[in-house]
C-alpha cells in the first residue's frame, strides 16, 4: 500500500507517492517568483488553485487509484503559515475522505531523508541549505531520536541571502540560480567571511556585496558572493565531520541543486575519505516525494495522529521532530 506526501511550506505545492521506500510519483507546481519575491497570501492562493490537480496528477503518474493509498503525510513546518495551511487542509480532507491514517512531517527531516535515501547513506552529517534554513545536522538518540543542530546560521539562510541580493540588484528571476549564472567566469573580490565554530552568518556578506554593487561588475560580485558563502558552509560541514568522526556527508535543500556547492563538498569529503551523497534536483527543491518517504516510515512505526490533532507550526524546529 502506498503513502501520499503533501508539501506546501513555501513556493511549491508538491505531491509525492511512496511505497516500500521508493518514490512512485513526485508532482509539483511552483509559484513564479518574478522580481518581487514571495507574498505568503498570494502563494497560498496559488496552492489552493493547484492542490486538486497536482494530487490527481500524482495518482495518475503512479498508476494508482485512491483505494491503493493507505496513509498520508503533510508538511507541518517550518514554513509560511498561509502556505502550510493549504497542504494541511488538503491532507486532512483526503484522510477523512479515504479513511486513511495521517501524520505531520517536519520539512527539514524530509530533505535529509531524500538525500539519505537517494545518496545511499546511513547516518550522515547533513548540510541542509535552502532559502529559509542553513544548518549542519546529525542524528542523535537522546532524549529521543532527532536531528541535532551542530551549527547553523545566526541570521538568514544562504538561499535567502542569494535571493535578496538578486532581488535588490534587479536580477530576474530574483533567486540564487540567477546569481549562479551571472557569476560564471567571474574573478574573486574579497568579501566578509563569517564563521564562528560551526555557526555562520550571511547578513554582513550581503550588506557588503550590495554596497559594492554600484562600483564593481556584477559578474565578479555574483561569483565572489557565491564562493564566499559556499566556502563558509564547506568549512563548517568539514568541522562537523571531524568533530563527530563521521564517514558520511550529504547536502540537501534547494541550494543543494547548485553544482558548484556540491563540487566543493565532494572535494572536501574526498580529502577526508568521507562518502558524499545527495538527491536528484527534483528532490532537493521542495517536493512531496520526500514528505511521502518520511510519512511512510513514520506510519510504519505507528506514529499516525488523529485528524483533529493535525496542525501546522511555522517555526517547527528540526530538533523537536521525532525521527524513526
Amino acid at each position, binding site marked *: 500500500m502506498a503513502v501520499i506526501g503533501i508539501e506546501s511550506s513555501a513556493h511549491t505545492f508538491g505531491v509525492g507517492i511512496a511505497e516500500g521506500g521508493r518514490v512512485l510519483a513526485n508532482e509539483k507546481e511552483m509559484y513564479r517568483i518574478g522580481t518581487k519575491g514571495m507574498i505568503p497570501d498570494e502563494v497560498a492562493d496559488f496552492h489552493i488553485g493547484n492542490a486538486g490537480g497536482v494530487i490527481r496528477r500524482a495518482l495518475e503518474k503512479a498508476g494508482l487509484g485512491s483505494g491503493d493509498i493507505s496513509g498520508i503525510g503533510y508538511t507541518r513546518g517550518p514554513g509560511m503559515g498561509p502556505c502550510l495551511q493549504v497542504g494541511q487542509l488538503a491532507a486532512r480532507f483526503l484522510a477523512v475522505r479515504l479513511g486513511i491514517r495521517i501524520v505531520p512531517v517536519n520539512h527539514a527531516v524530509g530533505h535529509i531523508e531524500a538525500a539519505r535515501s537517494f545518496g545511499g547513506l546511513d547516518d550522515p552529517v547533513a548540510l541542509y541549505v535552502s532559502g529559509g534554513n542553513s544548518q549542519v545536522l546529525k542524528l*542523535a538518540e*537522546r532524549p529521543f531520536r532527532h536531528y541535532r543542530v551542530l551549527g547553523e546560521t545566526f541570521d538568514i539562510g544562504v538561499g535567502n541571502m542569494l535571493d535578496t541580493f538578486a532581488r535588490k540588484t534587479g536580477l530576474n528571476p530574483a533567486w540564487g540560480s540567477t546569481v549562479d549564472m551571472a557569476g560564471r567566469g567571474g574573478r*574573486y573580490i574579497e568579501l566578509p*567571511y563569517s564563521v*564562528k*565554530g560551526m555557526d555562520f552568518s550571511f547578513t554582513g556578506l550581503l550588506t557588503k556585496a550590495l554596497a559594492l554593487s554600484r562600483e564593481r561588475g556584477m559578474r565578479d560580485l555574483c561569483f565572489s558572493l557565491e564562493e564566499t558563502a559556499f*566556502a563558509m558552509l564547506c568549512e563548517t560541514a568539514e*568541522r562537523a565531520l571531524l568533530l563527530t568522526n563521521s564517514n558520511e556527508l550529504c547536502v540537501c535543500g534547494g541550494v543543494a541543486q547548485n553544482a558548484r556547492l556540491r563540487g566543493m563538498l565532494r572535494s572536501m569529503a574526498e580529502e577526508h575519505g568521507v562518502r558524499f551523497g545527495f538527491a536528484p534536483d527534483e528532490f532537493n527543491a521542495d517536493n512531496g516525494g520526500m514528505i511521502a518517504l518520511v510519512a511512510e516510515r513514520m506510519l510504519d512505526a505507528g506514529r499516525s495522529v488523529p485528524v483533529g490533532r493535525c496542525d501546522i507550526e511555522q517555526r517547527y*524546529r528540526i530538533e523537536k521532530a521525532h525521527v524513526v
Partner: protein
Amino acid sequence: MLVGEGAEARIYSVRVFGKRLLVKVREPKEYRVRELDRAIRKSRTRREARIMSSLNKNGVPVPRIFAAGAFSIYMERVDGKLLKDMRRRGGAMRRAGEILAKMHGLGIVHGDFTPANIIANGSDVRVIDFGLSDYSSGDEEKAVDLLLMKRAVPARSYRAFRDSYLAHSKDGKRILGRLAGIELRGRYQTRTLE
C-alpha cells in the same frame, strides 16, 4: 611528525635546536578559490599569532609562541588532558571560567571556546586553538563564547564555569544578560536537547 589534524590546520611535532615544538600549519583547501583560500589562511594565522602573544604577555595561560610565518605558527608543546576527555572536571571548569573572564577583559574573544580546546594538567589549565579568536569589545561575541561552552557540556559543568566567569568578570552580569537574549532569538530556543 603529524600529531593532530583539525578542520583547518595540521599540527606537527618538530625539533628545533634540540627543543620539541609544535607547529600549526594552515594548509590549502582545494575546495575554495585560491585568493579566498590564501586570504583566510593568512589573516587567521596572523591574527592567531598576535592574539596568543598578547595573551601570553598579559598572563593568560596559553601556549607560548616562538615564531610565525605566513601560514604557520611555532609554539610551545603543552602536556595534559583535553577537558572533553576528563571525567571529573569541576575544578578545570571553574578555572576555564576565570581564564575566559580575563581574556574578555582584554578585549579578546576565543570563537570556539569548548572542552575540546582546553587542556588541563593538574591545576595547570590552558586554552589552545585561537584559530577563530578575534579582538572584540562587543558583548555579543563574548556571549557567544559562553554559549558554545553551554552547548558543549552538561548543565552542572556549565554552572561551575559560569559562576566562576561571573566572579572574575567586571561585565559578567551584562554579558550573561546578552547570552539570555541570544538564546531567546527563535533559532536557539530548543537547540540543545542533550
